[in-house]
């Protein structure tokens, strides 16, 4: 066992006392997950899907669960960031070091009025202890029932992620549960804003978003506020998205914390007529891994996964996508771009499964990387498994350096080399990040990118 898991085990023990009030089913869930995680251990580069991302730096980390009121340690920069977000139209759910901060959360003045009564939000930590626990258990049971109706468990689509997912469940205490009623069209974005105190902590949170039939929503998930590159900070976050028939979700996700070890999972079930459109901006992390798994279970469903990764110094940013087309007449499209500097590494693994009866599937995947240094490395791995015969599928991966003709053209008009380089990179990146639907998030992305190009 590695030091990270060892220290996490003692942290768990230390918390047993405060976990006393928890209902039995939560304890069972946690213990079961912990046993699974311990049995499997942290994945190593011998595991196929971890071949390019070594967790050695994580295993050397000392795990420490967050303080009970971490917001007391937030600095002015973080507070300003949160204040700004509250001024905009959106429902902000704030997490500090992974802990839900009730008093810092709330809707902005211009937010959709009906947001509150239309959306059920359960603070997981509070619900686990209070009378709402029963409601929550009911919800979890309903989710489990929904999951059991799936042709195969979601985990089977991306089996090698078990340890990371289990670790999250084994600590489960923080998170939100959001239910959007059928037919509801939410205009304001729901934002999960994660900020850091910069203190050494390991945060675990689990979020569930469920959309009723025919509803529409926007979810913004972001990890902000830089921490020193040697900070002992790790975050394990799982977001489960359950769409109902003909519902639509736009999900923007931004990862922008320099010193963090980040393990994020997004699991989505997309039934008939539903649309899931996501934009993942992986702009900074010490090691940042994002697993996005979409299972398409109903005809006419559409999945769009776009992504932009920027990596610098010795960062490793890793995206693992898996789309499972299980029924006929469904579509998916993916465009992932990455920009790499210095000795950083960017990984993109894109799996597309088209099952035997999923005829008339249209699935397209494209990854494009721009290397700004000879020492950076891109690992792009498209994997298509197509069992149906009447489908339209394509994939492509390109890795290139800046086009010298374009560089010279700009320079010959008086634009200095560094500026020309920045202009071309920004143009490359803009195609992705400018599609962000939440102006607040777009502004955050702009700030992060300015840092990258500086």
């Amino acid at each position, binding site marked *: 066992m590695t030091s990270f898991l060892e220290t996490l085990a003692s942290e768990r023990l230390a918390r047993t006392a405060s976990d006393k009030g928890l209902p039995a089913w939560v304890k069972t869930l946690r213990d079961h997950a912990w046993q699974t995680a311990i049995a499997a251990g942290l994945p190593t580069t011998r595991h196929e899907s971890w071949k390019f991302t070594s967790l050695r730096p994580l295993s050397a980390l000392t795990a420490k669960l967050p303080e009970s009121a971490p917001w007391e340690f937030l600095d002015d920069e973080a507070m300003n960031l949160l204040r700004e977000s509250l001024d905009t139209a959106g429902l902000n759910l704030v997490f500090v070091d992974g802990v839900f901060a009730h008093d810092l959360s709330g809707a902005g003045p211009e937010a959709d009025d009906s947001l509150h009564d239309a959306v059920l939000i359960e603070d997981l930590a509070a619900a686990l202890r209070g009378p709402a626990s029963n409601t929550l258990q009911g919800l979890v049971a309903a989710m489990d029932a929904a999951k059991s109706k799936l042709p195969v468990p979601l985990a089977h689509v991306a089996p090698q992620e078990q340890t990371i997912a289990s670790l999250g469940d084994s600590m489960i205490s923080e998170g939100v549960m959001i239910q959007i009623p059928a037919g509801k069209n939410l205009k304001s974005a729901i934002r999960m804003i994660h900020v850091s105190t910069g203190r050494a902590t390991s945060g675990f949170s689990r979020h569930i978003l469920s959309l009723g039939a025919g509803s529409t929503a926007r979810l913004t998930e972001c990890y902000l506020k830089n921490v020193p590159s040697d900070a002992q900070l790790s975050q394990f976050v799982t977001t489960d998205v359950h769409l109902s028939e003909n519902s639509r979700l736009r999900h923007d996700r931004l990862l922008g914390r320099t010193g963090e070890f980040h393990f994020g999972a997004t699991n989505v079930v997309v039934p008939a007529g539903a649309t899931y459109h996501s934009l993942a901006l992986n702009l900074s992390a010490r090691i940042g891994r994002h697993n996005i798994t979409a299972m398409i279970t109903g005809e006419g469903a559409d999945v769009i996964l776009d992504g932009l990764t920027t990596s610098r110094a010795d960062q490793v940013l890793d995206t693992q996508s898996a789309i499972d087309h299980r029924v006929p007449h469904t579509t998916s499209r993916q465009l992932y771009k990455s920009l790499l500097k210095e000795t950083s590494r960017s990984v993109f693994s894109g799996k597309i499964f088209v099952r035997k009866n999923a005829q008339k599937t249209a699935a397209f995947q494209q990854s494009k990387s721009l290397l700004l240094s000879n020492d950076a490395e891109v690992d792009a791995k498209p994997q298509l498994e197509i069992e149906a015969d009447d489908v339209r599928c394509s994939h492509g991966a390109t890795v290139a350096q800046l086009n*010298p*003709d*374009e560089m*010279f*053209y*700009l*320079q*010959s*008009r*008086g*634009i*200095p*080399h560094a*500026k*020309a380089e920045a*202009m*071309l990179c*920004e*143009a*490359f990146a*803009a*195609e992705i990040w400018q599609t962000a639907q939440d102006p607040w998030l777009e502004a955050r992305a702009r700030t992060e990118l300015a840092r990258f190009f500086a």
Partner: protein
Amino acid sequence: MLTIKNLKAKVADSDKEILKGLNLEINAGEVHAIMGPNGSGKSTLSKILAGHPDYEVTGGDVNLEVNFRQKNLLEMEPEERARNGVFLAYQYPVEIPGVSNAEFLRAAFNEICKAQGADEMDPLEFDDFLKTKLKFLDMSETFISRAVNVDFSGGEKKRNEILQMAVLSPRLAILDETDSGLDVDSLRIVSEGVNKLRNKNNAVVLITHYQRILNHIVPDHVHVLYKGRIIKSGDKTLALQIEENGYDAIIKGYEKEHQREYEKENKTSAPK
């Protein structure tokens, strides 16, 4: 304004010499046309003056007079040359996806302002300035919001080069086959644009295959470039003569003379 002395250059990473001792003197207020058969080094000359990394200068000097001071052009980075007033209108303008024409033009304009100690313009100011230039060149405003040269027709690309010239108002403009691929109307518009930008303080070098553009932009001097050297210079009638008789007679005349020179050179350097 520009003095080229015995300029020799080759393709970088190769032994292929393209310019073999080229001499040229250009004064402010003048228009020079450089003509010559394919492969004579015309485009190479223009790229070397702009500082293209594909070519390596192996000998000679190029001096640019800036505010009564001689500057060594060859020592400058491409962007410094531009800031000192050198402008190349490309034969094949480069497409830059994702960068808008307005953004590009403003970045270039402000760099040159900065270099010349003038104030930079903010986007709104620049927008107004750009609109006057578009009007001046009879170009539609939609030009500026499009990505640089992306999905532009051949004629639009060439006009965009002249727009850049109008915005940057260079001291020395080198137009590399700006006339090639242009229809009659586009040629007229582009030529009128260049004529409007001419004044006693700047100079224009037209690199061309055809006499046609010289009917619109009348040159003070015409030079014939052949195998990396200027083999004949004259006034605008030289272009008409070439149009009429081709390069053959000029080349033959030069080679005959050159042969004599060559023999003489051999004689003097013969071992004793």
